[in-house]
């Protein structure tokens, strides 16, 4: 097992290097620089912009910039933002808790909806419940978050005036009031993301359960006289978990990188909104950190999913 993990980790290194090179090149080739706004200010002559570019080292050829970036980041120095002059790691530290809170709890809510609904849909296939669940799953899956987000704002903030649509991470309260205010601020972005996630997770859980419940050992379990709950949860669901766990493991990296669109709509100060702003202002160190961390997480969690397979399914053994 340890050997398997070590081998996979080694294979990941060239993959990650290639990813970083491609990302860096694309960013460098995109037009514009962090000083785009200055170009329209007649009081800032072009020499000033040239000096600023020199200070940041972005006047050098792309491969020189890349090698410098790579050498520094291998040593754990991810640089500082071109725009705010803040250390990239500090920027991330400021944003990560919010992203984890919003996107993470959205994922938990999504699981809490998807697992029971998916199981019931499979057990009672083609029942009224299954049809309703399927309809809602397709609806939720085909409505993009920018649509449901705006819809929620229109209904709950503009017409009903129940909820604020501008998220504030800094709530001036303590105790129960704090929890209540946090809930009011977080519920719309969380639900927008959760409904979208729940829709596709439900389909996976249902499909995985359907594969399992027609197996012989389920009939055996039933024949033994086990209760329906015991059969469904203990025998069917545990086996159905295997593909579901893969999906969940592959979704985890996305929790760390936030939700670009939803964060933008509700002004949630998470990693996603940081990423989009950094792309717009050509803030290469920040973009590289976020996107590259995402790549690392994807590689890592693919490995985690493979390892979990072995834990969940005794038939699979790695050598």
């Amino acid at each position, binding site marked *: 097992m340890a050997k398997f993990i070590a081998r996979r980790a080694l294979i990941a290194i060239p993959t990650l290097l290639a990813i970083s090179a491609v990302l860096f090149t694309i960013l460098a080739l995109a*037009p*514009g*620089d*962090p*000083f*785009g*706004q*200055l*170009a*329209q*200010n*007649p*009081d*800032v*002559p*072009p*020499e*000033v*912009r040239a*000096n*600023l570019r020199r*200070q*940041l080292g972005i006047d050098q050829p792309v491969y020189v910039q890349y090698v410098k970036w790579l050498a520094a980041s291998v040593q754990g120095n991810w640089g*500082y*933002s071109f*725009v*705010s*002059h*803040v250390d990239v790691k500090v*920027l991330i530290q*400021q*944003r990560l808790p919010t992203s984890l809170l919003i996107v993470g709890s959205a994922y938990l809510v999504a699981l809490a909806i998807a697992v029971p609904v998916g199981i019931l849909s499979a057990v009672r296939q083609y029942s009224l419940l299954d049809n309703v669940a399927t309809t809602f799953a397709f609806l939720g899956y085909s409505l993009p978050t920018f649509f449901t987000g705006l819809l929620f*704002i229109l209904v709950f*903030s*503009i017409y009903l*005036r129940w909820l*604020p*649509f*501008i998220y*504030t*991470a*800094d709530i001036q309260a303590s105790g129960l009031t704090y929890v209540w205010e946090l809930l009011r601020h977080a519920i719309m972005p969380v639900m927008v993301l959760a409904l979208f996630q729940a829709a596709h997770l439900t389909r996976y859980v249902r499909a995985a359960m359907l594969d399992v419940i027609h197996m012989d050992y389920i009939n055996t379990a039933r024949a033994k006289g086990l209760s329906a709950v015991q059969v469904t949860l203990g025998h069917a669901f545990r086996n159905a978990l295997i593909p579901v766990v893969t999906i969940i493991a592959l979704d985890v990296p996305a929790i760390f990188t936030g939700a670009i669109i939803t964060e*933008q*709509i*509700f*002004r949630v*100060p998470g990693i996603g*909104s*940081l990423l989009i*702003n950094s792309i717009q*202002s050509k803030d290469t160190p920040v973009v590289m950190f976020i996107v590259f961390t995402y790549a690392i997480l994807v590689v890592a969690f693919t490995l985690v999913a493979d390892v979990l397979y072995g834990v969940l399914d005794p038939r699979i053994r790695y050598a």
Partner: protein
Amino acid sequence: MSEWTVAKLAEQYRSGRLTRRRLIARMVSAGLGAPVIAGVLAACSAGSTNKGSGAAQAGTGSDASSGANDTFQPAKRGGGGTLKLLWWQGPSILNAHLSTGTKDSDGSRLFTEPLAAWDPDGNPFPILAAEIPSIEKGTLDKEGKSVTWKLKKAVQWHDGQPFTADDVIFTWQYTTDPATGSTRIANYSNVAAIDKIDDSTVKISFKDPTPYWQIAFFAGEGHVLPKHVLEPFKGKEARNAPFNLKPVGTGPYKIVDFRSGDLIIAEINQNYHVPNRPFFDRVELKGGGDATSAARAVLQTGDYDYAWNTLVADDLLLSMEKGGAGKTIIVPAASCETIHLQMADSTTEADGERATVKSKHPFFSDIKVRQAFAVAINRKLIAEAVFGRQGTAATYVVVNPKRFAPDGTFEYNLQKAAQMLDDAGWKKGPDGIRGKDGKRMKVLFQTSVNDIRQNAQAIIKKDLESLGIQVELKSVNDTVFFGGDPNNPDNINHFFADMQMYASTYSPDPQTYMRTWVSSLEGSGTDNIAQKSNGWSTPNYSRYQNPEYDKLWRQARAEMDPVKRADLLKQMQKLLVSDAVIIPLVNRTPAEAAKNNLQGMDLGPFESRLWKIAYWHRT
């Protein structure tokens, strides 16, 4: 090719010859967007009462300077509670000298201050200065070689240290160190030395006579920095200064917390140097999101007190205002949407360069043709239908301050334009396109990708086509269009087209802006014209060459008499317009959103929206 113009259609619609449905169908087929069509319809119904070219547009927004005649005189500091501001681009750094955009200057304005600011009329307003230097007081040199600033006494930094002349001198040293990477370094290029006379007096000496001395330590670009805090962080260390995120200033608010791009929390400075100010105890500035929802949060739900730069279609703003929580404030801007004509030939290559200064444009080299184009553009319709309250039809580029704005009216007359083109020898050919000596009248008209600009382009194209001019429209992504990359031919610098449209902003003194049409700063060369040898970095993109204009510009550069100088700057603009190298289109008057009870903002064209934050209050 259809022989109609938006104006003709509007005329037919007004006189009842065209149904509303037909009108809309024709405009849709011309590629006009929904807001424009709505605007044309509105302009038609209003047109009967508001004819006459160049008439000022009747804006329904509130008076921008809702502070000029403000009589609020508080008897004590504070007591106003929390002020909630919404900037859809969040400030990313709070050191104004390292900022790359207005959002950062805005954010730092809560904490640090310049010696003086520009009031909405373009007059200096002392902040950290005890008075504005003047020749009468003997603090401004007659020859423009020096200026002496008397500083306000007993001003304290947020940490209790006194503010002195040393801080002013340090700010100059900090900013002009190239390693600091300040974006304001050019503001001091003409400064030879800054000397300390005493603790509260500094004397700035200039290399050349400088009539426009109000650039150093002025307004959003001139914030004074604390020497005792930033001295170790001058030069290469600038980016590591904690000050950049936790500024120590003299301003009305002290920093509590700042998260780059997201949120500024500030609390009242109990030692602020203006008595009984500010009014609000706490300021929260939230960043991010989009302009539309920002406007909604102020105008419709009233969750926030003020939203910056609500770049939203005017009809949408009007419908939000029905929510009743807030109002739109229309603020004049120092920015004119202008069409520039190319004087060189960009279609052929000579000496390995397109549009070289030696080449002549096939038809814009004839002043008659340029003037015909100027008459063929319906600025009034564009202003009303495309910009709504957020723009007024322009005759000249500079409208603020008033002392630099020439008087005059423009003309829109398609028959006259056709006649002028006929007279110039450009007759319509069998295919309906004008030509002369085997050359066809075909223009490439470029601008940046932007709904407003594309709608204006479509209206202009229709009018020009009705005159027998073939028009090709081009729109370029704005980071490319304004990026100035010497290797990219699609930017305004290269101007490889016949017409281009954009807006540039100008300072309270338009001297630098007027440099745009100078061919040579000294002598008689073409050094100020964008070309291959200078990487297209100099501002004369139109390749305009007029010795008379150069003479006026150089005169204005050294003229110390403000009245004579204003006259020169006006003459230059008149020359540009009569020579038709530019066609000013619309003077921008952007919208801001504020709660109904918010007062004292005193917004103007040359200052950050927060320049007078210490005077904001609620009624």
